[in-house]
C-alpha cells in the first residue's frame, strides 16, 4: 500500500527487545516524552497496551491520540507498525 519509512522497517524487522518508545514508527521526541510520562517507557509497554486493545488498530489509534495528542497520521503509523510486528513475531 503506502511506502513504509525506514523507522517502520527497522522496528518490524526484528524483536523489539528493550527498544525505547521512540523507536516506534510515528513516535518522535514529543510524543515519546508524553508516553514516558504516563509510564510507557519502553516500546514493549506500548505493545502491551496494543495487545490489551485486542490488536485493534482503530481502538489503539484512538487511545494514542487521546493519551498523547498524536495526529491521525502518527497514531495510524504507530498502530500499523505494532500490528505488523505482532504479525511477524507474536
Amino acid at each position, binding site marked *: 500500500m503506502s511506502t513504509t519509512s525506514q523507522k517502520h522497517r527497522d522496528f518490524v524487522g526484528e524483536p523489539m527487545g528493550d527498544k525505547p518508545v521512540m523507536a516506534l514508527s510515528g513516535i518522535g521526541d514529543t510524543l515519546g516524552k508524553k508516553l514516558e510520562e504516563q509510564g510507557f517507557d519502553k516500546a514493549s509497554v506500548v505493545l502491551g497496551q496494543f495487545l*490489551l486493545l485486542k490488536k*485493534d488498530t482503530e*481502538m489503539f489509534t484512538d487511545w494514542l491520540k487521546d493519551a498523547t495528542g498524536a495526529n491521525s497520521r502518527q497514531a495510524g503509523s504507530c498502530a500499523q507498525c505494532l500490528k505488523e510486528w505482532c504479525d511477524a513475531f507474536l
Partner: protein
Amino acid sequence: MSSLSNMSAEEISELLDEYGIKHGPVVDSTRNLYEKKLKEAMAKGKKAKPSPDKTFYREEEEEVTYVYRTPAKSEDVRDSRTYMRSRPEWTERELEHSASYSGYSRSDYKGRNYDELSHESPKYTKEDFPTYGQDAPKAPKSSRLIPLWVQFLCFLAVAVFLYLVFSSMESNEPLKVIE
C-alpha cells in the same frame, strides 16, 4: 443513568457489548478510552438494545441495495464483492434458523447486534422489501462516481463516432464484411 466512572469494570464491559463495541479487558489503562467510546455511542442516540431495528437498516441498507440490483445488473465488478458478501447473508437469513444463525454471525460480524436481530430476522424478510424498493433508486446514484446517464451518453457518442468513421470510408468493403 449513573456516571460511567462509578461503574465497575464488568458493568462497563457489559455496556460496551450492548452498544456492539468490540473491546478488550477493562483495566486502568483502557478504562478511560472505553468510557469515552461509551459516551460517544450514547450521544449518537442509543444504538443499544432499545432500537436494534434502526441499526439493522443503517448497516444493511447499502448491502441489501446491491443484492436488490444485482439480478438486473451483474456486470459491475465493484458490486460483485459486496454482492458475494451480502448474498450469503440473505440466504442465511431466509433459510437458517435463528439459533444457528446467531452462532454464525457472532463470529463473523464484529460490532453488530445480530443476537438481537436474529430474533427479528423472520419479520424483516417480508418487511424489508417495500422499504428497499424506495431505497434502491436512491442508493445506486450515490454509490456511482459517474452517473448512469453520463455513461450511456458516452457509449452513444462512441457508437456514433464509429459509425461515422465507417460510413466515411471510401471503399465499401468494411461495411460488407460486417453485414
